């Protein structure tokens, strides 16, 4: 692992105001969130529903504006990026979501789906270049080139998630934000996708920010872990240390509640 910080988030906060029974109430989705992801590092974020994981991801992807705090990428503040620079950021940081079925347009074929981010980033790229890159990526994620002309509904869950991974990699990003990337997949297919993620990280020196509720999966894939509850970080540190020697009662309760095969 190199020591270059890739993504630095400092004091990030976001609240939503809600009207309930006539009264206004502020929901603090994320409060004072600080984290650093280094080049080639894999950082996990654990927490239950309502812990603010999704709001956090959306802010890091610049899909949602934070109320407070600073996001730096490769040393530059990126909170207010616009136009060409925003496009460049989106090339460096790609996302894979839980439900690839809804992330993939049902009216596009696999070839177009995988090629789309590249065409957005480099509209003048040649057709043969696109074809080459799509073909080699599909091969890399373990999909047959025959699937190029298929639509998402013709694919299985595991295949769709692999298309989503291929699509995120075509612009050669430095970091992937993975929001519950395998929780919709079956056990026998889940390990295929997790192994693929581990291999790609190794080959390409990718950094991962992986959000998941499954602690066993986080233990396999990440080296640093942040536990969130109600928008705040309750515990963080090296994944093994946090999970095997949990200090905070909330982390301990997550570990105890984990269904285990061998107790």
């Amino acid at each position: 692992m190199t020591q270059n910080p890739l993504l630095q988030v400092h004091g990030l906060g976001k609240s939503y105001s809600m009207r309930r029974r006539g009264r206004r109430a502020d929901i603090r989705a994320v409060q004072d969130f600080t984290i650093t992801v280094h080049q080639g590092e894999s950082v996990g974020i654990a927490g239950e529903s309502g812990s603010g994981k999704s709001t956090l991801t959306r802010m890091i992807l610049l899909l949602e504006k934070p109320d407070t705090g600073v996001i730096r990428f490769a040393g530059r503040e990126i909170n207010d990026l616009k136009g060409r620079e925003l496009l460049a950021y989106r090339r460096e940081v790609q996302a894979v979501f839980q439900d690839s079925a809804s992330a993939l347009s049902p009216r596009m074929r696999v070839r177009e789906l995988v090629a789309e981010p590249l065409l957005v980033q480099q509209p003048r790229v040649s057709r043969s270049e696109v074809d080459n890159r799509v073909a080699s990526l599909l091969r890399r994620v373990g999909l047959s080139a025959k699937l190029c002309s298929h639509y998402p509904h013709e694919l299985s869950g595991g295949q769709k998630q692999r298309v989503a991974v291929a699509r995120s990699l075509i612009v050669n990003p430095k970091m992937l934000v993975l929001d519950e990337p395998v929780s919709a997949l079956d056990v026998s297919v889940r390990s295929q996708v997790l192994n693929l993620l581990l291999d790609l990280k190794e080959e390409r020196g990718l950094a991962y920010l992986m959000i998941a509720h499954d602690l066993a999966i986080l233990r396999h894939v990440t080296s640093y872990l942040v536990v969130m509850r109600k928008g705040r970080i309750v515990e963080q540190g090296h994944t093994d240390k946090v999970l095997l020697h949990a200090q905070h009662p909330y982390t301990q309760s997550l570990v105890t509640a984990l269904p285990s095969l061998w107790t």
Partner: protein
Amino acid sequence: MSAGTIPLLDVRGLRVYVHTKDGTVRAVDGASFKIERGEALGLVGESGSGKSMTCQAIMQIEPRPAAVIEEGEVLLDGEDLLKKSARDMQRVRGNRIGMILQDPLSSLNPVMTIGDQLIEALRLSDKTSKRSQLRQQAIVALERVGIAKADQRVHAYPFEFSGGMRQRVAAAIAIARYPDLLIADEPTSALDVTTQHRFLELLKDLKRERGMSLLLVTHDLGVVAGTCDRVAVMYGGRVVEIGKLEQILRQPRHPYTRALLKAVPQFHGRRLERLFQISGEPPNNREDLPGCHFAPRCSEVDQRCDAEYPPTVHYDDASCTACWRLVPEDET
């Protein structure tokens, strides 16, 4: 009752086919298993393995007209439910067999208070009691599933509850009439780990207190591990292995069960860099494969596996497998 040796539920050779315009899907392709009184059986399988369709066929709520129960018997106390009239079957549902689904929002009525929904369920078998008495029973049922201030919460609507609480309400309705068997189809898949843990504890309590049998359907072996006495593993519409919980987890016999257990990321124990993976994709159950459905992904496959479906080998009353590798030589 004199039904000493008859299991509470005995499913024999069940086949449920779904007829679509793209052809027939053999959702359940000859599934057999038994559940004893007071026993919790885990029905484990990946999506598309036919476990939900099996439960729906037991309750006869399979999505008609596309899904058709082609063959088999569903014996409850020795009586074939598939031969019952629609009217008699209505009395079995809720009274003898209760059911909880994955998403409680889809089984609860959003515009009725949960008290009214419980009263509606109770009224089906009790035409004489006053409404106030049924309301009292409804409150008791809610208290039984661990809902605090039940006397106030009966007036609340489903949207006012959290996911875990809604699932408790669904459980209260399912067990309101003290069924002998509770079918829970992925009851905790939509819940957070801590909520899941508490809900599974509740199911165990209900089973212990009432001697109720449980058919727990899940894709998560971890859920089964803390809750069930025996496990049936489904693959491609068939039950490939049944065994006691301990045996399934520690000495799985069928290659699919073994592969499935190895593929689960383990929290305890050694941390591996790469996970064990089963190559290939789950079957689509469209083609009429003559052989074992797991053969295309199996690492121990030989020529018999593709030619003919393996016979079921019984070890004792509680366990069996369907795999050519496990058929003794002299029987082949």
